[in-house]
């Protein structure tokens, strides 16, 4: 075993039922087949989670995985992931997060820390250089995530600053949309990963190791890093550019249907200034931002309302930037919110675009102060803001139709835009009380409770609520909402991401986006669309296996040289084409997990409202629609899966090779 290859070569398996630990060595060949991060996570889950396991039972495994490149001196590789069987979708589940937790996993000597079984009483895992221990966490149960971190810092003294991942009350009482928080509110939010953590009575993972992370060619890595940093450093918006121009920029983005070559690197200037918040208003005029439970447009939330989400107004609260480990962009921020929360909370992580849209335009809520409060409530409560916002939007539309009244909603008036009611409802959802008890498990469950007539209003794909980006603007986004084994995700792929990545400069079979190409062709299920979506899916797996940041990827792979980084870290000499095969294998394994669990991939198709059925009657996306079934088929085809069913074919499974994993349970032709 070679320990100079970026990865640690082992994982820790913690059995919470009998409080035992097992170090499992992982052979080099596994990393060569699946990388680390999500690939290693999928390998472990597929191998050790029995088919049919109850996601909230002892047989499910929850993993915390770092990336292959994390801690090697590469930039933009400080992401970690939580992996599990998802209680929300019934299939493979994962959630991506930044903060400071990722390097801490490897500094304990592991590429991943996995938990099986269930503790009898609340526990936390603590690891330092002496090794792992399970400690009693009864006193922490019931605390929010911020209070938990503070309490743990009082309870445990270590030489190194503690890196803590914890659940809040939402995960404790097993809301299906619970997430895991790190560093005061950086969230691994999706798939119900916090729910699984709560089901195991695991309150927190606390890391204080300081082992070194080695790699094959550190000098090469540093050279790549310096080149990237130099470009990012010189990408700055001039001071005169303010948020006022963002709506105009949004309009200009859709002024033409022709593709224009885009240099993603200069977008880092925008990210440095505003973070993801630039989309708050630019997305309104583009049509990217969903409005009124995805049935409205900027006509329903016009300038006089959306101007309150101008990112300049959010920046006013920012006291300093925040960035994940090894990030040179720094899109995050810490915001002073004493005055807007009547002193209830001193500060919060700057609300991301997803939260601003999910609780702003999606609910026709123009009260910006309420969004700061909701952001902090959800971070502390440990609940996914995308899921929570979508679920409240569903309830509001039901209320509008008269299907809900104030008797059912615990007295809450769920008129669109009622910020007071929204804030109260969020608190109820986190606590699992009142009307929140019905909504706390996400939109699909809420719809099942309210009745079959409400199903068309429940916006989800396979149970997962979608991110705040409209497939009617970018249909390839819709493909990934519907086809990814973790459905409903906005970070897997889109036509726009494909264009920014410029992956054709490395991967010889990736189609080039030519100047003047007709973007409206992306509304048809063509081979080009199938191929682009396949490329998106594969490269995202490589990114998530490496610990890489999505914003680095869309700054352009001609700048963020992930393939060169991977070769330098491991000593491998793989071509980009060969890495893409690894990405394809990783994605196929995730799909195989779902098929083995009896999931019909076609059932993950997203709500038809998002493919324009019926089409919007006004706004920038007026009349836009596409055939989601056809689009899914062409994606499956290019993934090497059966075009009709989405099940990996026998040929695909044999060609890719899955080491020691038993693939016979995956039904194939």
């Amino acid at each position, binding site marked *: 075993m070679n320990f100079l290859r970026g990865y640690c070569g082992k994982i820790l398996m913690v059995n919470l039922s009998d409080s035992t630990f097992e170090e499992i060595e992982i052979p080099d060949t596994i990393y060569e087949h699946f990388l680390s991060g999500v690939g290693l996570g999928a390998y472990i889950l597929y191998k050790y989670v029995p088919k049919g396991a109850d996601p909230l039972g002892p047989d499910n495994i929850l993993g915390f995985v770092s990336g292959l490149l994390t801690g090697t001196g590469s930039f933009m590789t400080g992401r970690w992931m939580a992996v599990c069987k998802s209680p929300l979708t019934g299939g493979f589940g994962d959630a991506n997060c930044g903060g400071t937790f990722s390097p801490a996993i490897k500094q304990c000597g592991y590429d991943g820390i996995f938990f099986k079984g269930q503790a009898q009483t609340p526990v936390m895992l603590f690891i330092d250089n002496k090794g792992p221990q399970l400690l009693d966490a009864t006193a922490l149960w019931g605390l929010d995530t911020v209070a938990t971190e503070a309490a743990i810092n009082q309870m445990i003294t270590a030489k190194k600053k503690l890196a803590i991942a914890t659940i809040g009350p939402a995960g404790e009482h097993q809301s299906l949309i619970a997430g895991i928080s790190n560093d005061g509110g950086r969230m691994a939010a999706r798939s119900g990963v916090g729910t699984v953590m709560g089901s195991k009575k695991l309150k927190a993972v606390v890391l204080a190791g300081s082992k070194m992370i080695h790699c094959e060619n550190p000098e090469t890595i540093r050279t790549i890093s310096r080149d990237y940093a130099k470009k990012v450093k010189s990408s700055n918006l001039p001071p005169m550019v303010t948020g006022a121009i963002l709506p105009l920029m949004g309009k200009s983005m859709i002024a033409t249907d022709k593709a224009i070559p885009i240099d*993603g690197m*200069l977008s880092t*200037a925008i990210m440095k200034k505003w*973070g*993801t918040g630039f989309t708050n208003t630019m997305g309104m005029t583009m049509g990217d931002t969903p409005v009124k439970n995805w049935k409205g447009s900027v006509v329903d939330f016009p300038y006089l309302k959306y101007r309150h989400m101008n990112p300049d107004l959010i920046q006013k609260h920012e006291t300093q930037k925040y960035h994940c480990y090894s990030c040179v962009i720094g899109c995050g921020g810490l915001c002073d919110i004493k005055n807007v929360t009547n002193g209830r909370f001193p500060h919060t992580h700057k609300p991301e675009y997803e939260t601003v849209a999910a609780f702003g335009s999606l609910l026709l809520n123009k009260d910006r102060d309420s969004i700061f409060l909701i952001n902090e409530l959800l971070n502390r409560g440990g609940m996914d803001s995308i899921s929570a916002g979508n679920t409240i939007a569903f309830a509001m539309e039901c209320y509008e139709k008269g299907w809900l009244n104030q008797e059912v909603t615990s007295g809450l008036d769920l008129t669109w835009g009622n910020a007071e009611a929204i804030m109260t409802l969020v608190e109820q959802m986190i606590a699992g009380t009142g009307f929140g008890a019905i909504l706390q498990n996400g939109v699909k469950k809420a719809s099942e409770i309210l009745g079959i007539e409400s199903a068309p209003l429940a916006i989800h794909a396979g149970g997962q609520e979608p*991110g705040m980006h409209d497939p009617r603007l970018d249909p390839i986004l819709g493909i990934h909402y519907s086809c990814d084994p973790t459905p409903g995700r906005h970070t897997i792929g889109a036509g726009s991401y494909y264009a920014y990545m410029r992956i054709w400069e490395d991967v010889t079979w990736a189609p080039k986006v030519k*100047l*003047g190409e007709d973007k409206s062709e992306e509304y048809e299920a063509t081979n080009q669309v199938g191929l682009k979506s396949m490329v998106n899916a594969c490269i995202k797996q490589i990114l998530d296996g490496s610990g890489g940041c999505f914003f680095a990827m*869309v700054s352009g792979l001609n700048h963020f040289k992930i393939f060169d980084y991977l070769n330098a870290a491991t000593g491998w000499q793989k071509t980009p084409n060969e890495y893409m095969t690894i990405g394809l294998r990783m994605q196929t394994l995730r799909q195989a997990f779902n098929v083995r669990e009896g999931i019909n991939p076609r059932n993950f198709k997203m709500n038809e409202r998002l493919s324009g059925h019926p089409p919007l009657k006004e706004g920038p996306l007026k009349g836009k629609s596409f055939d989601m079934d056809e689009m899914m088929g062409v994606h499956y085809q290019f993934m090497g899966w059966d075009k009709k069913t989405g099940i990996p074919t026998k040929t695909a499974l044999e060609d890719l090779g899955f080491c020691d994993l038993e693939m016979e349970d995956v039904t194939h032709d």
Partner: protein
Amino acid sequence: MKVQIYPPPFANLNALDEDGMLILEPGARLSSVYRRLKIPLVLQPLVICHVNYQRVKLNTQLKDGDVISFILPLAGG
């Protein structure tokens, strides 16, 4: 000489080939790129332009293979 252009959306794209390359006279300056792309004068203050990822003056002389990028935002998460 050929330079790589990442133009703003409202530019005249007829001067570029399908790979976004622009042919210029040797020794041409950045101002000639603005002229060839017909970037309207009124919009020029809104446009941020980098040559090889550095802010430079409009009269900067270009060379073969230079990358000229006009800032464009992208949707975030």
